[in-house]
């Protein structure tokens, strides 16, 4: 009897451990950001529209914003672009772009062609700002609250579904609470 109970018990224990592991693992390939719940990184970068002007994180404090990391070299960013335009038209949260390791002229052309959903776009030519935000692939989108705290991060193309289920409820819950 014991001969069968012991391996069976070991198997059940392993099955439970693995089931918990699978249940708690995040979406495939998505890595939890340590930034969520913490202050967004400080930055001061040249604006895409006018390199003489600086986009400063300090100027963004006091209201909600979506920080969207993109580049013209990124195919997924093209796929997500219509969703960004919809977000802009909704007029609830402004989009702040980070043009990551990109050719500025091409980026300006991209916005002229596809439409510009961004309130402002900062240029990260060296890639240092993206590292500060823990970005490992474009597109990535961060939702930042008026206190400057990152409350949500989305990896990959933003979809209508993510907007409706993850971003909008967070912003409107805060608006209702205040």
């Amino acid at each position: 009897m014991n001969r069968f109970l012991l391996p069976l018990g070991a198997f059940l224990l392993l099955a439970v451990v693995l089931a918990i592991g699978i249940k708690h693992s995040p979406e495939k390939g998505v890595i939890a950001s340590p930034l969520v719940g913490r202050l967004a990184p400080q930055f001061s970068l040249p604006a895409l529209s006018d390199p003489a002007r600086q986009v400063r994180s300090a100027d963004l404090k006091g209201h909600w914003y979506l920080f969207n990391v993109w580049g013209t070299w990124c195919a997924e960013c093209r796929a997500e672009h219509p969703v960004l335009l919809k977000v802009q038209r909704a007029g609830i949260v402004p989009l702040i772009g980070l043009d990551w390791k990109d050719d500025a002229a091409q980026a300006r052309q991209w916005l002229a062609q596809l439409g510009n959903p961004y309130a402002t776009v900062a240029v990260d030519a060296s890639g240092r700002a993206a590292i500060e935000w823990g970005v490992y692939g474009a597109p990535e989108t961060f939702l930042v609250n008026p206190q400057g705290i990152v409350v949500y991060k989305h990896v990959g193309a933003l979809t209508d579904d993510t907007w409706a289920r993850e971003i909008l409820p967070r912003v409107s819950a805060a608006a209702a609470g205040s």
Partner: protein
Amino acid sequence: MRARLPPLAWLVLAALLRSGGALAVDPTELPDPRLQARYVALTHELRCMQCQNESLADSPVDLAADLRREVREQLLAGKSDDAVRAWMAARYGDFILFRPRYSWRNAWLWGAPAVLLLMGAVVSWRVVRQRTTLLAGDDQPVEEDLPG
């Protein structure tokens, strides 16, 4: 007496020495050899977040090059290895560390091998003891079990 290598061995040795340079993605050389050694060790134990199963040292992607630049600059600025690791983990999470940190959250990870070893030892000890008692209890000569 001098040991002589056969020609084929020389060929293999030469190929091994050359391939080290040819395979390297990262040509960085720091001025101080001790700093260089730390740089090499660190870039091998930090994960390339884009490819995920390669280290920073082995990855040819842009982001890995940017992160190697950070390691290089921070080492040159006099930061400790632990400070560089903590800096990386603060931005990319513990996932970037190929060598997990000692923490209560990771206790099961570090403890599991010891626990498994202990379980194996207990099981094998029991099996051995069972067999020895079986042997001791079997007082019949082996020959008598055989037919004929």
